[in-house]
């Protein structure tokens, strides 16, 4: 039965090995697992792995191999390798000013991070190769449980609270997934993780869509991204940005391709975060908003649903993991070396961290979709598909959002971290392993953009598309360069808003402020009613007792104890009366 090894297995075994090793052997394992896993993916996966008649008679598919699952499989192996290479120095304790990796607090926090990251990567692989909803559910929940330690490893009160909220939101998503899956199974008799859609699936389809949507950062459910990434460790954020949301994008592509509602949701996701990204001060929170914006393009592409659009969506997910990983790595490097991530605290680092600055700029150019960089060949598929399907308004929104990407991720991130005003910080370049990981990320950003023909060969659908037409190159450069010109004009006229130490209210206020407030208010209202009712009842009982006491109490006329003498007197009087009547 087990002719092929499900890709999550090496990672789960690897996590065990990492837990019981230290030093060099641990480092070797960290790098070897994604490489061996990748070889397994390239050479070992020959057929699906199924567990027949399992759990109530359903067939569980632990491994389903097709072009879509393989694409995400390759991606997650690359992401895991880069992530572990980037985090390889953890536990060495020789990094200046290392903040947030928990090494200073003693214990094997580095080990905890490595183990949880290994299990997290394995869970992501388990989810994308799952062929049924039950298996998907198990890995879906494992994604949350394993990754929360990358937030808690910061070891602060705030990260602890953030981690809990993260966990609750994702567990809710998992519960919805299981409920939707069971309702669907009741309807169709199958738990196969395939196309679901919203037509003819009733509530089950919607519940599944919401379950996927929470993990994908749909509007109103998006703040777990902007909350948890900035609170995680510098290395943890690299892993977090790679897996969870992309598993959700994969699930949407698998089950809800062509659903019109996703076009609207996706377009909204490309649009509103860019305003927040302009205002935000914490650069990792800016990247969080940027993440939602990029997922918006993917969700809209899945909603459009044509071969070109879905290819564009999954290709863009692939490119995004690499360039967003690179951006998180470069800001993580800054954080590791300076302990800061806020625009107000940074600036001028290009003087002492030129390599990191250059690599950050490569990531920035890739996400902005400059020709020769990855997003140029991926995002454009979604945009062209939108025009082909006559979604003109959507296309205009996306074009605006593309300019917005250049603003917050293309210019703001590198500009405020490495240039802008000189903060006076003279931090050194980060450890070599970080630089190498970032360099590989940068090379991949360019490779996807240059060797696009080979990259397109990995995509799941058949299509005809050529990204490097003169018109596309020219119009894209015009959009980007004149956008940048707009930025220069905004800076020179002083219109561009300063970075401010502040928070900007977002949907999270619902559960961080309004929810607790409602609970408190409801609690105190209930308490007031409770006090009043108790007092009234007590008063009532007391007054009944008073009346009873008046009649039956010690001095009450009905409760007096009468002395024998007076009784004899009364008896004598009665007898006298008797005699008087009858005689």
């Amino acid at each position, binding site marked *: 039965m087990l002719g092929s090894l499900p890709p999550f297995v090496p990672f789960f075994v690897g996590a065990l090995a990492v837990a019981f090793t230290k030093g060099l052997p641990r480092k070797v394992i960290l790098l070897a697992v994604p490489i061996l896993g990748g070889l397994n993916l390239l050479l070992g996966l020959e057929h699906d792995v199924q567990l027949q008649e399992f759990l109530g008679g359903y067939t569980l598919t632990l491994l389903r191999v097709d072009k879509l699952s393989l694409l995400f499989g390759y991606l997650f192996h690359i992401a895991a390798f880069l992530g572990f290479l980037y985090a390889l120095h953890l536990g060495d304790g020789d990094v200046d000013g290392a903040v947030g990796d928990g090494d200073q607090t003693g214990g094997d926090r580095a080990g905890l991070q490595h183990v949880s990251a290994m299990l997290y990567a394995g869970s992501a692989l388990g989810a994308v190769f799952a062929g049924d909803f039950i298996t998907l559910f198990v890995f879906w929940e494992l994604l949350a449980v394993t990754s929360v330690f990358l937030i808690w490893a910061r070891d602060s009160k705030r990260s602890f609270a953030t981690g809990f909220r993260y966990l609750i939101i994702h567990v809710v998503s998992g519960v919805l997934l299981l409920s939707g899956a069971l309702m669907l199974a009741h309807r169709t008799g199958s738990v196969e993780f395939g196309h679901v859609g919203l037509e003819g699936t009733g509530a089950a389809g919607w519940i599944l869509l919401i379950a996927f949507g929470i993990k994908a950062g749909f509007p109103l459910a998006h703040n777990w991204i902007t909350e948890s990434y900035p609170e995680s460790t510098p290395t943890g954020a690299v892993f977090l940005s790679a897996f969870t949301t992309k598993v959700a994008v994969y699930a949407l592509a698998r089950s809800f391709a062509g659903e019109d509602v996703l076009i609207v949701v996706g377009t909204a996701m490309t649009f509103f975060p*860019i305003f927040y990204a302009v*205002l935000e001060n914490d650069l990792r929170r800016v990247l969080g908003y940027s993440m939602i914006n990029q997922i918006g393009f993917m969700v809209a592409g899945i909603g459009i649903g044509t071969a070109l659009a879905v290819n564009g969506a999954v290709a863009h997910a692939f490119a995004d993991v690499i360039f967003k990983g690179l951006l998180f790595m470069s800001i993580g490097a800054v954080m590791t070396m300076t302990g800061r991530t806020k625009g107000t605290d940074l600036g001028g680092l290009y003087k002492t961290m030129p390599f990191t600055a250059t690599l950050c700029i490569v990531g920035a150019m890739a996400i902005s979709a400059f020709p020769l960089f990855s997003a140029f060949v991926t995002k454009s598929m979604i945009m062209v598909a939108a025009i082909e399907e006559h979604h003109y308004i959507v296309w205009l929104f996306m074009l605006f959002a593309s300019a917005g990407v250049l603003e917050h991720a293309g210019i703001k991130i590198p500009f405020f971290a490495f240039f802008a005003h000189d903060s006076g910080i003279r931090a050194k370049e980060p450890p070599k392993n970080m630089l190498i990981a970032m360099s590989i990320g940068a090379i991949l950003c360019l490779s996807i953009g240059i060797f696009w023909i080979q990259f397109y060969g990995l995509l799941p659908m058949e299509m005809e598309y050529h990204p490097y037409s003169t018109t596309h190159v020219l119009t894209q450069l015009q959009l980007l360069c004149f956008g940048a010109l707009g930025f220069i004009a905004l800076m020179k006229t002083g*219109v561009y808003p300063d970075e401010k130490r502040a928070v900007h209210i977002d949907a999270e206020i619902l559960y*961080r402020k309004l929810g607790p407030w409602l609970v408190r208010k409801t609690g105190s209202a209930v308490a007031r009613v409770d006090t009043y009712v108790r007092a009234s009842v007590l008063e009532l009982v007391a007054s009944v007792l008073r009346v009873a006491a008046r009649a039956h109490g010690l001095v009450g006329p009905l409760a007096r104890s009468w002395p024998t003498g007076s009784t004899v007197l009364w008896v004598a009087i009665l007898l006298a009366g008797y005699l008087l009547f009858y005689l």
Partner: protein
Amino acid sequence: MSHEHGDHGPKEPIGWMDKPDFVKRLFWAFYALCAVLVVAEVVFGKATEHPHPNEGWFGFYAVYGFISFWFLVLLAKPMRKLLIRSEDYYEGDEGAEDAG
């Protein structure tokens, strides 16, 4: 750059952004690139298989890019006025909860 501490302070690196002439030249090079991109549209024209109704207008992408940045920032500024809170906005509340 002059230093009061002289030799005692660490050697202050001078980056290219500290050289105003160089930065100015860089800006001019960028303006030139923008001009070239407009001229290129005259020379090469635009040809897409499935054009958007507005896409064919001359300089559409350039104008759209420039305006997008201004629209974004000009809308974000009043948004900030509405949404901005102190950095410990959530912490204060959660602290109160902990205490309660």
